[in-house]
C-alpha cells in the first residue's frame, strides 16, 4: 500500500488526469445510453429532455479533452506508449461523442413514438436485448481502456458481430410487421432508427476497443480481416 504519487512526474500526472477525464466522459455516455434504453422500455418521456441536455456536456468534454491532447503533444512531445496513448485518446473521444449522439437519437425516437400514442413494447424484447448488449460493450471497452486489458478489448470486438446479427434479425422482423399491417409503418420506421442507433453504439464501442489495442500493443487492427486480429 505505498503512496502512488512518489515517483510520478508532472507529465505522468497530466496523462493520468487525461485518462480519468476520458473515462469520466465515457461514464457520462454510459449513463446517457442506459437512460435512453430505460426511456424506451418505461415510456417515461420526461427523461428525454435530460438526455438531450446532457449531450451538450458530452460535446464540451470531447472538445476539452481534444484540446488537452493537442497541448500535451505540443508541450511535451511524448514518444512511444505515451504518444500512442494521446493519439488513441483523441480518437476514443470522437467515438464516445458519437455514441452519445446515438443515445440522443434513441431518446428522441422514443419521444416521437410515445407522443404519437404508440407503444413500442411489442418489439421490446429484441430491442432491449440488443440495447443491453451494446451498453455492456461500451462499459467493457472503457474497462479495457482503464485496465489496459487487451483480452477484454478483443472480446468487445467479437461481441460486435452478435449485435450486428441481432440488428439484422430485428429489421427483418419489422419488415414482416410492416408488410402485414401498413398502419405500423410509422412506428416501425422509428423503431428501425432506434435499432440502427443501438447498432452504431456497438460499432463505436468496437472502435474504442481497437484504439485500446493500438495504445497497449502498438498494433493498428482497424479494417483487418478476422484472421489477422
Amino acid at each position, binding site marked *: 500500500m505505498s*503512496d502512488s504519487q512518489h515517483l510520478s512526474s508532472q507529465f505522468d500526472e497530466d496523462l493520468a488526469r487525461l*485518462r480519468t477525464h476520458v*473515462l469520466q466522459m465515457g*461514464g457520462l455516455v454510459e449513463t446517457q445510453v442506459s437512460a435512453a434504453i430505460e426511456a424506451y422500455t418505461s415510456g417515461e418521456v420526461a427523461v428525454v429532455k435530460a438526455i438531450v441536455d446532457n449531450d451538450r456536456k458530452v460535446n464540451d468534454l470531447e472538445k476539452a479533452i481534444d484540446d488537452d491532447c493537442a497541448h500535451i503533444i505540443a508541450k511535451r512531445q511524448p514518444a512511444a506508449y505515451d504518444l500512442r496513448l494521446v493519439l488513441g485518446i483523441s480518437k476514443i473521444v470522437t467515438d464516445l461523442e458519437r455514441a452519445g449522439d446515438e443515445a440522443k437519437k434513441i431518446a428522441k425516437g422514443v419521444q416521437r413514438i410515445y407522443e404519437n400514442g404508440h407503444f413500442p413494447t411489442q418489439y421490446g424484447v429484441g430491442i432491449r436485448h440488443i440495447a443491453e448488449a451494446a451498453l455492456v460493450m461500451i462499459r467493457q471497452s472503457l474497462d479495457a481502456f482503464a*485496465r489496459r486489458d487487451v483480452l477484454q478489448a478483443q472480446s468487445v470486438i467479437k461481441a460486435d458481430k452478435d449485435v450486428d446479427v441481432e440488428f439484422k434479425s430485428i429489421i427483418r422482423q419489422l419488415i414482416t410487421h410492416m408488410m402485414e399491417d401498413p398502419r405500423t409503418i410509422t412506428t416501425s420506421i422509428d423503431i428501425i432508427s432506434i435499432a440502427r442507433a443501438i447498432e452504431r453504439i456497438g460499432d463505436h464501442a468496437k472502435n474504442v476497443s481497437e484504439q485500446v489495442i493500438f495504445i497497449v500493443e502498438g498494433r493498428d487492427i482497424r479494417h483487418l480481416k478476422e484472421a489477422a486480429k
Partner: protein
Amino acid sequence: MRAQLVRASALIVGAAVVAWPLGYFAAAWAGWALFSVGLVAQLLFQLRNFSRLERWSRDPVLDASLEGEGDWDNVFGRLYRHEKEMRGVIARRDAEIRMLISAAQALTDGVVLLDRHDNILFCNHTAEDQLGLRVAVDRGQAVVNLVRQPEFAAYLEGEDFSKPLTLRSERIKDLVLSIYVVPYAENNRLMQVKDVTQSERLDRMRRDFVANVSHELRTPLTVLGGFIETLQEIALDRDEQAHYLQLMGEQSKRMLTIVQDLLTLSSIEASPPPTYETVDMVTLLDKLRRDAEALSGGRHRVFLDSDGCGDLRGAEVELASAFGNLLSNAVRYTPSGGSIRICWRADAAGAEFAVEDSGIGIEPAHIPRLTERFYRVDRGRSRDVGGTGLGLAIVKHALSRHQARLDIRSEPGQGSRFAAVFPPSRVIGV
C-alpha cells in the same frame, strides 16, 4: 575491538620474532620470506571468513552454514540472532496484517481504501462484486476510472460526505448501493458500500402505497363532491336527480369496496395464523364455479377440471376469498367469448389450485410487482373493470399464511395462469 587489535599485533610481532633470528643467523631473504608467509597466512584466514560472510549475505538463510572461526564466530553469531529476530518480527506482522485483511474481507459491506488522489489502495471482495473492481489489477487506479457514474465522481469531488450517496449500479441490474466516505490517516479516505436494494424497494412500496390509497379514494370523492355541489346549486328535474343519485351511489359503493378490501387485508395480517380445519374442496370448487358464472353473466365459458380428490386444511374464509379473487380477476380480464378453467389437483407432494384464462395476459416485466398493493399494469384499465388494486395482495397474504405460494405465468395476448401451490402439510385425503 581492542582485544582483536592486540591479538593481531601479537601475531605480527610473533611472526617477526620467529623470522628475525632466521634472518640474522641464516640469509636475510629467508627471514623476510618467513615473515611474509606468516602475514599471508593471517590474511588468508581473514579472507576465508570474509568470503563466508559475503556468500551468506547474498542469500541469508537460517541454518548452520554461517559459521566462522575465532573472533569471526562471535560476529556471525550476532548476525544470525539478529536475522532470526527480524524474521520473527516480520512473520508476526504478516500474520497481523493477514488477520486484518481477512477481517476486512469478512465484512458484508464493501470497503474501498483510497489514497489522497482517490486511487484504489485496497478493496474487499464485497466491494469488488458491488462495484465491478478487481483489486489485483486495479490497485493504484483512480476509482472514478472504474466507477464511472457522473454522480459518483461529483460526490467524491464535492467533499461533502455528511449524507451517503445512493447509487444505482450500472453493472448489476436493480442493485442499489449506498456509499459512505470517511477520511482516515492523513488525507486517505475509506469508502463503505452498503447494499440497500431491499430497503429501497420497501421504501418505494410504502411511498407508492400511501400515494395510491389517497389517489384511489380521492377520485370517487371528487366525483361525489362535484355531484353534491350540482344538486345544491342547480334545480334539476326528477329524472336528472335520480340519474345523479345513482352515479353517486356507484361512487360511494366503490369507496366502500376499497375500504372493505383494505380492512380484509389488515384483518388477515392481524389475525392469528389459520388453524388446520378441514375445507371441503368439492363444495368450495362448486361454489366458486357458480360465483364465476354469475359474475361472467354468460360472457365466458367456465370449466371445472377436478377429480374431487383431496381437501385443504386451513381457514375457509381466507382461502375462499383468495380463490374468489383469482377467479374474479380472470373474469374481468378475459374478453367476452373467452374461456376460464378452474383446476384442482392434490397428491402426496402437495396440492395446486389454478385459474387459467384466455385473457389479455400480462407483460413479464409486471409479474414480480403484481401482488403489491394498488400496483397497476396499466393505470386506468383495471379501474374501468372495477378492480380495487388490492385483490392480488389479499390473495398473496392469505396464501402465505397457509404456507402456499402464488405462481403466475402469463403470455401477453394469450392468457394467464394463476396457481396457488400448497405444501403436503396443508393437504388431507389423498
